[in-house]
Structure formats: C-alpha cells, structure tokens
C-alpha cells in the first residue's frame, strides 16, 4: 500500500502539471510544470519527502530505459528525412553538445570558485 500511496501522489502532481500545460499558452511540457508543483509542495511542507521517496527514486532510476524505444523506432522510421542531415547534423550535434557542456560547466565553476575565494557569503 505504501507504494500505491506514493505513486498516487506522484500521479496527482503529474496530472496537475497536465492541467497547467492545457490551460497556459507556453510551450512548456507538463512534466516541467509538475516538477515545479511537486517541488513547491515539498518546500512548503504540503507533501513530506517520505511520502514519495521510494517510488520517486524508482522512477528516476528506470528513466534511461524509457528513452530506448523512442530513439530506436524514431531512428528506423525517419531514416529518409535523416539521411541528408546525417553528416552535417552529426558533426553539429557532437561539436555543439561538447562545447555547451564545457562552457556551462566551466562558467558555473568559475563563478562558484571566484565566490569561494572572495569568501563572500552573500548572494
């Protein structure tokens, strides 16, 4: 019953996210709305962490498995659109992904380290 209760709470927030996605005009997916709703509920104490912990962790752990099918069937069924983009698309994707990871990571690290060095506790 514990898991059922946890899953129910998680689905409740997922549905609330769906409702927001339906009502609001922004191109933001329901999962992101749901994530912020659940986050606010946790912060405000409306939902205790223990009430969703095990099921939440399970869902996060199995997440990579959920990407297998969309990638595999997408690859096979859109081959004809993909072919002309294969070389430039792959190069652009590889270069920009590695570049962005480096820029974002280094930039964040630089600012954090800078703040630490200054011994600045404000933010």
């Amino acid at each position: 019953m514990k898991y059922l209760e946890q899953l129910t709470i998680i689905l409740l927030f997922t549905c609330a996210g769906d409702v927001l996605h339906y009502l609001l005009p922004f191109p933001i997916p329901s999962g992101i709305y749901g994530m912020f709703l659940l986050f606010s509920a946790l912060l405000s104490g409306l939902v205790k962490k223990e009430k969703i912990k095990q099921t939440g962790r399970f869902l996060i752990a199995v997440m990579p498995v959920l990407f297998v099918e969309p990638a595999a069937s997408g690859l096979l069924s859109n081959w004809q659109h993909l072919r002309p983009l294969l070389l430039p698309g792959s190069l652009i994707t590889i270069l920009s992904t590695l570049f962005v990871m480096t820029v974002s990571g280094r930039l964040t690290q630089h600012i954090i380290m800078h703040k630490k060095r200054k011994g600045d506790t404000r933010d």
Partner: protein
Amino acid sequence: MTEFVSQSSLACILITFLSYWIGDAIHKKWPLPVLNPLLVAIILSAGCIYVLHLSPDEFSTQNKSLNLLLTPATVCLALPLYEQYQLLKKNFRALCIGITGGVIANGFLIFILAKLFHLDQTQFITLLPKSVTTAIGLGISEELGGIVPVTVIIIAFTGVLGNVSARAVCRLCRITEPLAQGIGIGTASHVIGTSKALEINETAGAASSLSIALAGILTALFAPLLAGLY
C-alpha cells in the same frame, strides 16, 4: 512470430527491457564510455525491430504504456532538487549564469556551423532545439517550422551523446565542482544527460535537473530570435 510480437505490448516492452539489461551487463563487464547501456540498448532494440520485421510505428505503439512513465519520472526530479535546495539556492546566481551562457553558446555555435555547412532554414531550425528536453524541443521545432520527427531523433542523439561523454568531458576540462558538472551536463543534454549526472552524485543530479527546466525555457525564448536572423 512477427505477427505475435507486433500485437503484444508485453513482448515489445520485454524487448526494451532485455536490451537495456544486456546493455547494462555489458557495461558492468567492460566499463568503457562507448559501451553505454542506453546506447547499446538502442542499437539492440533497433536490431530486434529490424530482424523480426516489425514496423517501428507498431513497436512504438506497443511500448506506449511503458512511456507513460516518462512524465511522472520527470516530475520526480523535484526530489533531488528539493534535497539539494540549500546548496542550489546559495549558488543560484552562478547556476543561472552558467545555464544562460550555455544556451547562448549553443545557439550561436549551431548558427555558425549551419551556415558553414550551407543548411537551409528548415534544417537549421530542426537542429536548433537539440539540447532541450523532448517535450519543449518538439514544441520549438513545430512552432518555427522545423522537421519535428528529425528534431526528436537529434534530441535523443544529443542526450545519449551527453550521457556517454559526461565523465570524460568533466575530466578533460577539469570541471570538478559537482554543481558545475550538473549544470554542464543538464544544459547540454537534458533529461538523458541528467540520468548520468544523478549517477555521478546527488548534487550534480539536482543541478542538472534545474538546468533541464531553465535551459528549456530560455531556449524557447531565444530560438525564434536566431531563426529570424538566419
């Protein structure tokens, strides 16, 4: 055989599970970054679809019930976000600047490379939302006139690439601060990268979860501008 499998949700989901399980077992035996469980699983299940003469669309339909879990799983990313809240709040400005910098760098680099490869505007737009989570990226591509299914594949490819290369990039570029690792991984490779960030550690995972949301929203605002310039 083909007929049975294409009619059976359980058989198709089993193919997905088995592929991932084998991928994971291979990764445990030979822990090389290229033998990423997700990557191996994608190749194995695509191979199964091909060998069993299944139609990719049928395979996708039979896996629907499994993919229903994706949105609740995304919602659950609130959990690491909440657990690391104090740390995130303390460094909020740094994290926001890191994410914004990444989004802008991404947009301009794709812009320049697309010009260099003489891609047309449709192809440029198709590539532009590659680093954001599928649901947001799909919306951007659709709104600006890209080829939506191709955007979806490129987003998945980007995610897998980020997932596979995360540890190596962080090591090579000496990104050692967990928060910074998470921001880099999440901004570059959305949810699929985030699952790797969560493996690295909880703090990186939380920062990465935050990046998915912020980078997604910022890209949605920034993309129309770049598309207009192209």
